[in-house]
């Protein structure tokens, strides 16, 4: 056989064999700065504490809360069902694999907004889908769900409904009864405790104020 043919066949074989041992090809999957700017102006990337509480209570299987604070803070306090991915480990392979599944709504939260915003930006740039931020973080969670402020007596009925929900959610999350002075007039604590938690917004009960 012609020597050139043998040489070329050998080169082809070696090049092919080399491909077996090369790592998976790296692809340019990152979002461009223009696309990131567009998605940053998108208000739907936030989930309010009320929405999050509703979905936690309903046991929504499509919700995955991700605590991006460090593990000590996570151990001290965290939301029910949350997983801990400290921000410094967010690029770890198993964490990226979790986000890459894209099967759930991934909601980042931290004490405030800043760390979860960073995590959202980083993971959005890596083209992960369905990423959200818990608006206001755990600080806002405490302010709204765990210690909801009593609405003014002249408030709209919708505000009272929201307050009712928050009080019910507070009991759900803390197991505590009502704080003195936060009960609405004309209702006993016993009535409160059996109130359905998730109520369709269309059907509003006319009670209280």
């Amino acid at each position, binding site marked *: 056989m012609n020597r050139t043919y043998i040489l070329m066949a050998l080169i082809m074989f070696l090049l092919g064999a080399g*491909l077996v041992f090369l790592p998976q*090809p790296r692809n340019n999957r990152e979002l461009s700065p223009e696309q990131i700017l567009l998605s940053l102006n998108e208000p739907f990337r936030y989930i309010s504490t009320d929405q999050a509480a509703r979905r936690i209570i309903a046991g929504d299987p499509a919700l995955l809360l991700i605590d991006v604070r460090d593990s000590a803070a996570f151990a001290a306090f965290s939301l029910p069902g949350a997983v801990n991915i400290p921000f410094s480990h967010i690029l770890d392979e198993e964490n990226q694999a979790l986000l890459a599944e894209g099967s759930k709504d991934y909601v980042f939260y931290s004490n405030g907004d800043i760390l979860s915003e960073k995590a959202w930006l980083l993971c959005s740039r890596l083209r992960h889908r369905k990423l959200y931020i818990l608006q206001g973080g755990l600080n806002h969670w405490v302010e709204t769900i765990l210690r909801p402020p009593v609405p003014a007596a002249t408030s709209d009925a919708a505000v009272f409904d929201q307050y009712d929900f928050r009080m019910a959610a507070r009991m759900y999350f803390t197991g505590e009864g009502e704080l003195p002075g936060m009960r609405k007039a004309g209702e006993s604590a016993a009535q409160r405790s059996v109130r359905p938690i998730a109520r369709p917004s269309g059907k509003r009960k006319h009670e209280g104020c």
Partner: protein
Amino acid sequence: MGPLIPQQIIDPAWNNLIGFLVGMCFGLILEASGFSSSRKITGVFYGYDFTVMKVFMTAVAVAMVGLLYFNYFGWIDLSLVYVNPLFLNATIVGGFIMGIGFLMGGFCPGTSFAGAAIGKIDAIVFSLGMFLGILLFSEAFPLVETLYNAGDYGGLTITEVLGISPGLFAFFFVCAMLMLFGILYYFRDKFRKIEI
């Protein structure tokens, strides 16, 4: 860096010019490989000449291995490269019809133009017949529209179906190709010799 047009490194207006230049080179290679002869092309079917198979397998292997290395070095992003969608039913029926035409006429569309370019009368007739076929297909399109759109699998690649890495598949392909070439070389005296 690449692909150049999807990454907007060069303007899409260059598409046709690049296609024209690549087409000219393709025609040149076809002619140089002897594909302007219908006997050479049908030789694969009758088992006396395997040049067509060798040239096309070599082209596929070089392109495949080359693209995977380019992808690894970051010169091209394979995830941005357009993958032709697979219409399984239409491909089977169309492949069968084209195979018959291939064998009867002794050309495929590309080689018929290569043959016509050097003045082969059978290639010119074949090319005209192809245009006639295109006209008939267009007129009969409402009848075959269901078949035309059936079995859409999108831009499927063989490595996705098999679930193996592209590099491993390329290696298997290269090995199979080299083994086939070796066998063809070993039995080269057994084939009938036909003057082309």
